[in-house]
């Protein structure tokens, strides 16, 4: 008697499930990824070309503590700083003319510091952070 052989199936890779898994991973990446935008306020602190010591003439001096803010000795609210500086910097062209020396006190928070530096940059000034420290002796009275 002749017995018919069973047909053996060849090797088979289940591509449908493979594709399913791949798409699952893609969806995971799409959901989990945060397309972050990193914003930064760039501050070039004193360099060889422009530093508080090398600025010719009398640069604008901003004294800042957590409770007070003065521009050339005059009290200025933080909200008006940009406007005030823009007026003082109008007509300034060179880097040295646009230099704004910032003297900070130890209690100045990073948020307030960033606000001040932002206002200076928006007004067209170049920030120079002085190594001089604002202490209780030379600090203007708070307002």
């Amino acid at each position, binding site marked *: 008697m002749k017995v018919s052989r069973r047909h053996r199936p060849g090797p088979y890779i289940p591509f449908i499930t493979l594709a399913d898994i791949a798409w699952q991973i893609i969806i995971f990446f799409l959901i989990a990824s945060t397309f972050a935008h990193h914003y930064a306020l*760039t501050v070039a602190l004193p360099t060889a070309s422009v530093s508080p010591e090398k600025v010719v003439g009398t640069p604008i001096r901003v004294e800042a503590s957590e409770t007070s803010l003065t521009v050339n000795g005059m009290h200025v609210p933080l909200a008006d700083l940009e406007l005030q500086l823009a007026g003082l910097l109008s007509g300034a062209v060179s880097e040295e003319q646009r230099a704004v020396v910032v003297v900070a006190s130890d209690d100045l928070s*990073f948020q307030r510091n*960033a606000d001040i530096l932002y206002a200076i940059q928006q007004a067209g000034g170049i920030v120079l952070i002085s190594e001089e420290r604002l202490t209780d002796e030379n600090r203007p009275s708070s307002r």
Partner: protein
Amino acid sequence: MKIARRRVEPIKETQMVSLADIAFLIIFFFMLTSTFMRDKLSVILPQLSVTSKTESAITVIMDREARIYLNGHPVGSAGALKTELRGLLAGRTTPRELEVRLRCDKRLTFRDYRNVYEAISHAGGIIAIMHDVKK
């Protein structure tokens, strides 16, 4: 002579092999471009209006306790930070290349971050103050 035309059968099968190929290409794209939370330390950044975008690869972090991290690794002091930054910034010339991202907790005071400012500056870097955008 009559030549019998071969009938072309329409393809009834979806091309799953090529679909899987495309899917894996997309996966590789995501894996290569993702940064996997390099800035995983939680820091409350200051809030400012929109400024410019930065792509710098060097990140200095100061957390709430004023601990300093360089590219995710703790650094003992501002002096050590300056030394390490000098090495990283060596050979870089353009302002873009010299940018050092500073992620500093907004509640820290000048007493805490002053040394880090000086370390970045003295190492030849340009400070890029990272911030959230005011809404």
